[in-house]
């Protein structure tokens, strides 16, 4: 069952060839068998089987995902199931409400299998920064799965869930999708509701999907996309029929290759995979041209001003008073705040809060934060300029394949460089998808397709046409068959 696409599973369920309880039991058994090896779940939903039985009893053809199991990054509030953000700070937190995307999934008939591991508060690129321990890459247990949505990526790659939700602030869906051989989409800023999604950097965060194929991702996009009055950054524009749009032929498609992305930093195996992908897309009728994103070299600096600044502001709410952990026997209010935050945040989270506090502090705001916001305008304009002449951008998803556990934990800057190809997309608020496009040294390689604002259907369309010609997305790690 775990080798079927979502589309196939929906049909099998609808024609009663299988039941949701069989399907959910199958995945729960796989989690039990394999998750001690990869540590991809923080909490397994003990009500999943009961919920599957209920779905089986009242078969409802209007529910597009009736009976389909899904894994959820532990950053989305789920009523009655712990939401920890992989932090000691929220290790006891049970949300009193569901995030809008969770409500939409339940309405569509999906069954939550559990909550997946992640870098604490989504800060990290390797999933080593979790209060619940690191996640291992199913393709090679000595390697990281990427981050911050590493648990969702590893769970889908090892087929412990057929599909999963993640979030992407600077690459947290696309980089782990690349490292784990998955299709991972980060929609346009404002496309999917963030109500009930724990905030890290509010001008960058967006909810997205890990799947085995663009076709599966399109089915889930249909369910989660759309306006939400409860999210003030949600945008009220029409949601297209993503599945119907998958089948457009690519003849005449104009693809841009940003010259700034193809430098010596890029591993050879990834450059080779991109060349092969270009060949496939050209055969389908696409034309390739070089483009320039001249302010690309500012992106990392801009991101590491804006993201920590917003993080320091958002995480000020964790004060040990209203929810979350509190230190033992506080001497006074100051001690309560300080000790709670010191004992319950990890070093990386504390560093980012401190950097954010620094760039926002009196006398420094104009020099760092305001400058970064201006430079962000230039980065976004570069993309708009490029989209005058092309339809989509093809780029690497990450400069390397999955790296070794502990390889980069000692130097935050080395870790940050893992996101150099994904960060500019968040700064510009664009949608992008990472696709499996080959292997280098037996590890998956990802390529990234970047679209203009609200062009999710275009990048899903190109991804699907590519996947009809290739079988990289069908490969699965041997030890988890």
């Amino acid at each position, binding site marked *: 069952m775990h080798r079927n696409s979502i589309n196939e599973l929906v049909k099998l369920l609808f024609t009663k060839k299988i039941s949701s309880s069989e399907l959910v039991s199958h995945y729960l058994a796989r989690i039990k068998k394999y998750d001690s090896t990869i540590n991809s779940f923080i909490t397994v939903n003990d009500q999943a089987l009961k919920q599957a039985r209920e779905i089986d009893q009242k078969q409802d053809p209007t529910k597009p995902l009736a009976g389909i199991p899904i894994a959820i990054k532990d950053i989305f509030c789920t009523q009655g199931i712990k939401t920890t953000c992989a932090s000691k700070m929220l290790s006891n937190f049970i949300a009193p409400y569901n995030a809008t995307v969770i409500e939409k999934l339940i309405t569509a008939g999906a069954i939550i299998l559990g909550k997946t591991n992640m870098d604490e508060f989504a800060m990290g690129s390797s999933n080593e920064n979790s209060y619940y321990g690191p996640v291992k890459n199913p393709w090679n247990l000595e390697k990281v799965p990427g981050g911050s949505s590493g648990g969702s990526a590893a769970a889908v790659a090892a087929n412990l869930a057929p599909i999963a939700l993640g979030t992407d602030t600077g690459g947290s869906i696309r980089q782990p999708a690349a490292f784990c051989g998955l299709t991972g989409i980060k929609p346009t800023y404002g496309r999917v509701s963030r109500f009930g999604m724990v905030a890290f950097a509010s001008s960058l965060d967006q909810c997205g999907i890990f799947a085995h194929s663009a076709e599966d991702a399109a089915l889930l996009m249909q369910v989660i996309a759309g306006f939400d*009055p409860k999210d003030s950054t949600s945008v009220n524009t029409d949601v297209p029929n993503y599945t119907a749009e998958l089948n457009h032929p690519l003849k005449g498609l104009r693809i841009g290759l940003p010259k700034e992305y193809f430098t010596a930093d890029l591993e050879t195996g990834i450059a080779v995979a991109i060349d092969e992908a270009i060949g496939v897309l050209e055969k389908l009728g696409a034309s390739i041209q070089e483009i320039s994103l001249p302010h690309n070299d500012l992106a990392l600096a801009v991101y590491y001003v804006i993201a920590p600044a917003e993080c320091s502001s958002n995480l000020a709410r964790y004060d040990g008073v209203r929810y979350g952990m509190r230190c033992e026997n506080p001497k006074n*209010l100051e001690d309560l705040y300080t000790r709670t935050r010191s004992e319950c945040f990890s070093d990386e989270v504390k560093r980012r809060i401190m950097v954010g506090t620094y760039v926002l502090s009196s006398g420094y705001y104009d020099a760092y934060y305001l400058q970064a916001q201006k430079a962000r305008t230039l980065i976004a304009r570069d993309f708009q300029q490029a989209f005058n002449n092309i339809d989509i951008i093809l780029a690497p998803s990450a400069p390397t394949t999955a790296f070794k556990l502990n390889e980069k934990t000692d130097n935050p800057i080395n870790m940050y460089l893992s996101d150099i190809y994904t960060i500019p997309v968040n700064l510009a608020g664009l949608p992008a998808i990472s696709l499996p496009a080959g292997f280098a040294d037996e590890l998956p390689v990802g390529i990234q397709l970047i679209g203009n604002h609200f062009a999710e259907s275009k990048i899903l369309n190109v991804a699907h046409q590519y996947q009809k010609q290739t079988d990289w997305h069908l490969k699965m790690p041997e030890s988890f068959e």
Partner: protein
Amino acid sequence: MHNYTKEEIKNLANLAKIAIKDSEIDDYAKKISNIINLIEKIKTIDLKNIPPMSHPLENINQRLREDKVTETNQRELLQKNAPLIENGLYLVPSIIE
């Protein structure tokens, strides 16, 4: 390249309501110096006539909702997650001696 001193790091931690142990402070100073040096170049580029981006989608303004009550009072439910409450109030150490 500026290396942040122990005192600067302690001051920064204090502003962020974080306490750092003496044994950890060198590591924090080194890593935070590296991060701030990474972003340092943003200070020197000429961006005089460029507007700051306040929303990732240009031409979209922050939507405001009507100023009316939409939620019912769910104090008990919301306080289930509180570390310490009494009679519906959050308890903190005494502030006025």
